């Protein structure tokens, strides 16, 4: 069974953690606490 089929409890907290990380990164960028990110 693929790994994606893990219980949904993990999937829900995964969403919350992903949103939290993205918001923290956005805040760090906004406060100029991260150097400009290049690609």
């Amino acid at each position, binding site marked *: 069974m*693929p790994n*994606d*089929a893990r219980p949904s409890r993990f999937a829900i907290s995964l969403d919350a953690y*992903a949103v939290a990380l993205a918001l923290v990164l956005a805040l760090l960028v906004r406060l100029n606490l991260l150097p400009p990110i290049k690609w």
Partner: protein
Amino acid sequence: MAATTTTPFRSLDGFIGLGRRIAALIPGLLLLAAVGYAGKFIEQSIGAYNKARHIPFPNIEYVLWAIVLGLIIANTIGIPRIFQAGVVTYEFWLKAGIVLLGSRFLLGDVLHLGGISLLLVAVAITLSLTFMHILGRAFKLKPKLTSLLAVGSSICGVSAIIAAKPAIGADDEDASYAIAAILALGAISLFTFPLIGHTLHLSDKAYGLWAGLAVDNTAEATAAGALYSDAAGKVAVLAKTTRNALIGFIVLGYALYWSSRGQAQAIGNKAIFLWSKFPRFVLGFLLISLLATLGFFTKPQLISLANLSRWAFLLTFAGVGLRTNLRELGKQGWRPFAVGAIGEIFIALLTLALVYGADRYLYL
């Protein structure tokens, strides 16, 4: 008293446990980064070589290289156990990347394209659910497996199947079959969709909308869009996110159907059920989009956020290749795969026709 003396030890144990779990992710994360970066390096190297020698060879995006490298590793030497925990995090990076991508959309664009997507999704869902059920009956699949395949192929892939499985009381085997079929078809779409898009000379917006509506799993939809162009990738993510937001409603409909037949648990509070199935990253995406619309970020900061989103997607695309086990997919039997494949072709053609129509009459 006992509680006060044991709490610090319990907290310390918990802290050490968390530290161990995070440490267990590091090898897999490094593998994702190495495969993704190798894909980016190959794209840049081939581009520079062709440019220096004036060879008119079309640019092959890092997305494809990362997926192909991952596929080769996973299906030849395999993924040693030490890397597996970290490799699974590709879905986490996908969701973080989508939230950050919100910075590249003004809320007006989201509402406009999201509105069109919603309309097209509603039409496509109705027709494809009906078609999948007819197909499932014709191929004599178990009814709950048909329900899972229908949810997975018409709404949004693996997450929809995982959300629907406990709600309709389907067994693990059915979910495993449906997930395998959806993943195999998603992998095929990565190679066929860009070719069809280029053959039909679809605009970035039309192609992105098509990929977002027709490719089932979020990671593959994002990759299929990005393989066409950066702009198409953005639109594909937006259309797919709109589909994801509808998971709760469709799963609720199926749960009510199966519980009315006495084959699944009854649903208590419908609002709580909907909220429990709603993908939270959609809210994060909308929040960042709202902040960008209100001018919360400067232009260089918006560029930084867009690049952070690209780095997150780089890890995702490496994970898409690394977690695809072709032998496992082959073991699942031909019937669910045949139903999935015929259904997917139908949905792909249907959504292509809808997008063509929308592009012509709704001026995407």
